[in-house]
């Protein structure tokens, strides 16, 4: 049942021209950025060679690109999550799910997994682009995989938050603005907090991505993403269930 809902979500995403446009534009921007980074790396390569322990091509190009993807996703994911529940409510299609033999858990998890799978494709396309570097040089696979794992976890947390905000309203646009406000708010609070031990650092998903970005697999960061995602998914299930009580 969860798979069925996820499949339906993917099906709808691919049936809409807007998702294709977003995918294409994003891929274009990332390719542009990727080539610019590559150019910059080639330009400074001679100077780097004189250093004792120079940063490699993966650290200079791939890690920087993944950091950009993480930032772009923060703006992009709310555009996708806004539809998840708010639009079903506005188009009154939620009644179909509510009158079907499904629990709120299945509805929320199905939608979450569907969109996550879609965004994973987007990340996979970025990964493919980075792996074209392997044609000309040796890549640091560990750093690359840690970055991709971090991106997947980060996306999961964004999607969960967006899904919850979407379950609060029946206006997709409000859901988008709400989710964007929370995500950008967390990010700004994180980079604005000067103190090293400020609690804002621990709350921001993007801050927890930094270790993954540097190639450091920290179970604390992974646990943060899992908890963050789980927390908002639970809230969303609660909200979908309450739909039956408050109408």
């Amino acid at each position: 049942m969860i798979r069925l809902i996820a499949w339906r979500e993917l099906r709808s995403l691919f049936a809409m021209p807007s998702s294709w446009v977003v995918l294409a534009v994003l891929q274009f921007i990332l390719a542009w950025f990727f080539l610019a980074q590559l150019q910059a790396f080639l330009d400074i390569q001679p100077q780097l060679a004189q250093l004792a322990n120079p940063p490699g091509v993966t650290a200079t190009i791939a890690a920087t690109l993944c950091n950009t993807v993480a930032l772009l996703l923060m703006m992009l994911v709310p555009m996708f999550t806004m539809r998840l529940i708010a639009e079903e409510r506005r188009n009154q299609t939620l009644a179909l799910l509510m009158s079907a033999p499904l629990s709120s858990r299945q509805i929320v998890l199905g939608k979450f997994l569907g969109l996550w799978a879609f965004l994973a494709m987007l990340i996979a396309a970025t990964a493919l682009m980075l792996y074209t570097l392997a044609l000309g040089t040796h890549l640091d696979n560990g750093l690359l995989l840690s970055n991709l794992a971090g991106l997947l976890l980060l996306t999961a947390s964004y999607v969960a938050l967006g899904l919850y905000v979407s379950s609060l309203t029946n206006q997709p646009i409000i859901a988008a603005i709400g989710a964007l406000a929370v995500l950008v708010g967390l990010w700004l609070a994180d980079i604005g907090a000067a103190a090293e031990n400020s609690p804002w650092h621990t709350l921001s998903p993007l801050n927890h991505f930094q270790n993954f970005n540097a190639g450091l697999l920290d179970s604390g960061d992974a646990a943060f993403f899992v908890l963050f995602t789980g927390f908002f998914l639970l809230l969303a299930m609660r909200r979908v269930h309450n739909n039956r009580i408050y109408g």
Partner: protein
Amino acid sequence: MPTTAPEITLSARKLTRSFGSQPVIHDLSLQLRRGEVLGLLGHNGAGKSTTLQMLTGCLLPDNARKNGCSIEICGIDLLRHPALAKSHIGYLPETPPLYRELSVNDYLIFAARLRGMGSAAAREALQQARLRCGLESVGNKIIGTLSKGYQQRVGIAQAIIHRPAVIVLDEPTVGLDPSQIREIRGLIRELGNNSSVILSTHLLSEVESVCDRVEIMQHGRLIYGDTSARMQQYGQVSGFTISLRNPPPPEELQAIPGINRVDQLSAGQFRILYDADNNPSAALLTLAEQRGWQLQQLTPLQATLEDVFVRITDAETAATGETR
């Protein structure tokens, strides 16, 4: 020949619901047997949709499980075992719940699998449902591009594809043109042969043409329930309108025995009211022929829902007055 009453497929007891401090449904009980078409008749805002939402599990009744409140679908408690009970329900809400970006086939397969059908069974059910709802030619079209009538049919197909025991239709013929309405009514009658159908409407004629039984709803209460044939007695008015090409003065019509009142609607049109036990139409026809009035049309007056309400509530107050 043994005659057993058909099984009860839906039984709701003592449903109560309010939104905020506004009570919407009071103490409502309903029963439905297999092979029965029940019409829920009422004005806008009478609580029909809310009732149907509760029957399909989209909305929980207030203080469920207390005060004897329960909903059973085919003997399964909807409030305790929602997943089991809901696979026996097909529901078409007021707005058909359509994913506009999917094709009709994809959408209907999704709807069938959502109710727990296997992939092969869903394909077979798809053929059946498309045939029944007249969707053979539009299978691969995107739902958003279909006309309103076709979308409504897809909505109905979605509700019947898994062959549920209880089919709940919320105003199924709203927004359709007359020929589509006739088709849909035929389909509903057909569905009523092996499932139970409950439909809400504010049209008297719809109840008369498709329903076996009627429950009339007003202000969140069921005020009257009977077979639709008996309800039609309430719907009858002792009167008709006639059109005459060569009309006489109204006084001449008034003189016919049995006629109480003659209202001239236009030059050749009259509304005629008569005593319930003395129908003057035969006398009128003979006179019309003798005097060359050239009768074109004679239509019995149809009562409006309002009239029926007034009569039923009058009858009820009279009955309670007698018992006092």
